């Protein structure tokens, strides 16, 4: 064979190899690569948690940055919403931000969702600042799928604050007691068990009142969750556990107050809100006493605190839309520490523990009805947006549409490792009882019992790896 010809073949072959190698490298480094994951664990190591809405930010601003792919027009809309999200309301009549109360839980969105992040449970006997109690009466069989039944004189949320001269509906205190959990390796950990007390109510609360404590949840990435097609969520459901893995997962169906029809719920600790518009409108209404087009009167209507002012709705639709757009269009922080081998090891353990059955790592968004930037994104929210039985210890024993008292919606885990830098604490779960990610895992029961037991059986080094993985989210 002609040596030159031979060399030419080798060169050609090498150049093809080189081009191929470069192509692989470029593709794997490119933020635009969402196509597929080559190995089983690649999806756990994709830095682009929110697809094109991802930002590389590990600072206290990580939850408060506009999605980088917003158009100029939408960026302006986002900033308008930033202002309305921060606006503190005051007692009517006022020149600006009028209409607070008469009874309420807080004066602005950001006062609970501090830096757009997670609320904190107060320590023993301290006043609640970024959490609240939902309340209702038990359902009868006939009302199986209807809205929570309001408590006469109180509604469905306890407002523990009031305008001057008005009576708050009551005060709340939390007392914690200890509960010991033992690992298989002989180590143990103390969990804190909350006990809620409602006192100084302006009128007696019925004895059969059901109480559900809830901390403020992070508000970024929600536009992406809204863009997930209903079918995608329903495909993850396994209501009767037909695959016999001990995990069911079922959708909540809740009232859409605009159409007055039942619709898939996907937001809130019990998936009790069907859309971000309704979530925001209800927060204005229930949390701040601000009436709006979706909830046109004050929560105190029919109670002695009602102000009789003819000022409803207290915010116009442009404010409601601006705040809604704000929470729809925030960026999702990128993953960190992906070069750390412990992260990959933790991801493998997370998968082996079957956490992924509910905390689904990867989903694809469909078409967002109004924000194209949220459409067709491959995202890693670590949720299925479905309800799961989490066992007796976490049960609030309060019905919320279809959700029963033991069920909670799988909360997204994206950004969870940044909780401390953003909010200065590491309190997790619906009532913030867990003081660390480890405690949060140990509280899992019900459908998640096997996963928790798997965690209990791990060596301390492996437990640490799993936590390091979670902290990289």
């Amino acid at each position, binding site marked *: 064979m002609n*040596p030159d010809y*031979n*060399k030419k073949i*080798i*060169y050609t072959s*090498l150049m093809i*190899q*080189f081009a191929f*190698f*470069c192509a692989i*490298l470029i593709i794997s*480094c490119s933020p635009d690569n969402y196509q597929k994951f080559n190995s089983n664990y690649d999806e756990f190591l994709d830095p682009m948690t929110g697809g094109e809405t991802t930002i*590389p*930010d*590990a*600072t*206290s*601003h990580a939850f408060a940055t506009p999605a980088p792919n917003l158009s100029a027009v939408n960026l302006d809309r986002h*900033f308008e919403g930033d*202002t309305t999200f921060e606006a*503190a309301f*005051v*007692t*009517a*009549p*006022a*020149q*600006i*931000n009028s209409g*607070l109360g008469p009874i309420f839980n807080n*004066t602005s969105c950001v*006062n609970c969702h*501090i*830096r757009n992040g997670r609320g904190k449970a107060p320590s023993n006997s301290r006043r609640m*600042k970024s959490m609240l109690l939902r309340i209702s009466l038990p359902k009868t069989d006939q009302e199986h799928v209807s809205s929570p039944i309001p408590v006469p004189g109180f509604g469905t949320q306890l407002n523990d*604050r009031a*305008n*001057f*001269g008005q009576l708050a509906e009551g005060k709340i205190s939390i007392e914690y007691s200890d509960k010991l959990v033992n690992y298989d390796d002989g180590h143990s950990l103390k969990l804190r068990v909350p006990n809620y007390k409602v006192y100084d109510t302006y009128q007696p609360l019925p004895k059969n009142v059901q109480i559900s404590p809830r901390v403020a949840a992070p508000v970024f990435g929600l536009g992406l969750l809204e863009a997930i097609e209903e079918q995608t969520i329903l495909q993850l459901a396994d209501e009767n556990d037909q695959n016999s893995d001990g995990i069911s997962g079922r959708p909540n169906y809740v009232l859409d107050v605009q159409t007055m029809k039942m619709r898939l719920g996907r937001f809130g600790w019990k998936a009790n809100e069907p859309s971000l518009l309704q979530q925001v409108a209800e927060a204005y209404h229930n949390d701040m006493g601000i009436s709006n087009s979706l909830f046109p009167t004050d929560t105190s209507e029919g109670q002695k605190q009602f102000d009789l002012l003819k000022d409803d709705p207290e915010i116009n639709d442009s404010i409601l839309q601006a705040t809604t757009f704000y929470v729809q269009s925030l960026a999702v922080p990128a993953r*960190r*520490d992906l070069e750390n081998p412990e992260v990959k090891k933790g991801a493998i353990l997370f998968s082996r523990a079957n956490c992924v059955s509910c905390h689904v790592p990867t989903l694809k968004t469909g078409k967002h009805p109004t924000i194209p930037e949220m459409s067709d994104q491959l995202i890693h929210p670590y949720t299925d947006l479905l309800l799961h039985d989490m066992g007796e210890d976490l049960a609030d024993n309060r019905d919320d549409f279809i959700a029963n008292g033991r069920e909670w919606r799988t909360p997204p885990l994206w950004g969870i490792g940044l909780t*401390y*830098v953003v*909010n*200065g*604490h590491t309190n997790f779960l619906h009532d913030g009882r867990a003081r660390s990610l480890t405690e949060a895992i140990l509280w899992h029961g019900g459908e998640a019992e096997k996963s928790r037991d798997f965690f209990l059986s791990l060596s301390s080094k492996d437990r640490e790896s799993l936590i390091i993985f979670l902290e990289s989210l």
Partner: protein
Amino acid sequence: MKVSQKDSVLRQAVVTICMSLVLVFACSNKGRDKIQAYEPKNIIDGFANKVVIATYSDLDQKSGALLQTVETLKINKTDASLKQAQDAWKAMRRPWEQSESFLFGPADTNGYDPKLDSWPVNKVDLDAVLSSGEKLTVPYIETLEDELKGFHTIEYLLFGSKNDQTIKNLDVRKIEYLLSATQSLRKTASDLYKSWSPSGGNFILEVTGAGSSSKAYGSRKDMLQEMVNGMVGIIDEVGNGKIGDPYNKKDPTLVESQFSYNSLQDFQDNITGVKNVYMGSYTGTSTAGGGLTSFVSETNPELDNKIKLAIDEAIKSITSIPYPFRDSITKHPTQVGKAVQTIGNLQTILEGDLSALISDSEFN
């Protein structure tokens, strides 16, 4: 040497060259020149001690001075005492506004910021409280909402609704409220200082321990980015919010510090706070080895000059707006518009060029 051996050597050489090329491309980060490793500890330590702690310490002291003047006002009800208290309020306002370029950590997570600086004032409830028989003690004021305490409630009492307060108008109830609200403000300012101080909450350690002992900041690069984000955050708020909003809507009710007509000083101090962080000292002048400027001037001197110039231009554009700001939004739109533009320019440089420089650095 046989051909096949030659080819083998050649093949190895080509593979090596290719791999090296790939590595070079992969590490060059979009073709930018590789940035020399730089020790950022001085910048971070300087920021924490010479900027943050120094600013909060001054805030704490100025809150004490304000309280003294209000105590005097209670005893000696004269226009001169009122003026002294007004001046002390304005003096305390300055370190606070400068501190808004680093509103992270306890200022937010412990709720000190809303407690000190909530706005608007809940005038309906304030009037109702004043007309009531409630004892206006400090613990009582503490139970009220943030919109009934802090800087702006005190401002409203000290200055009236249009910088027209007189001692005659300050009745006993108003002075009692003023005193308790000022004591509460003083306590919050001290708590904020203590929360950073090594002898108190020691948050400073989260900052200076970035990349090592810090639970919040896994790398020094993250901490430096926090500093840049803080600067960008307040610049954005001044340009687009504090100045831009009332200017675009021509609405003086949206103006910050509108009762005292102190808005322009507030805005100027906000940008001065940015300068402090950049230069690494509370007085805004660079000290040896400190300030982001020490890193930028070594790495990209052109950018360093650009940033310093843009900061000074931004401050100048604010001082060029005629007093009071609430009137200028309609009477002097050219100057106000110029300020919005100039501040926007500073924002673009910091969130673009400076942020990229930090991001491309090899700090860990």
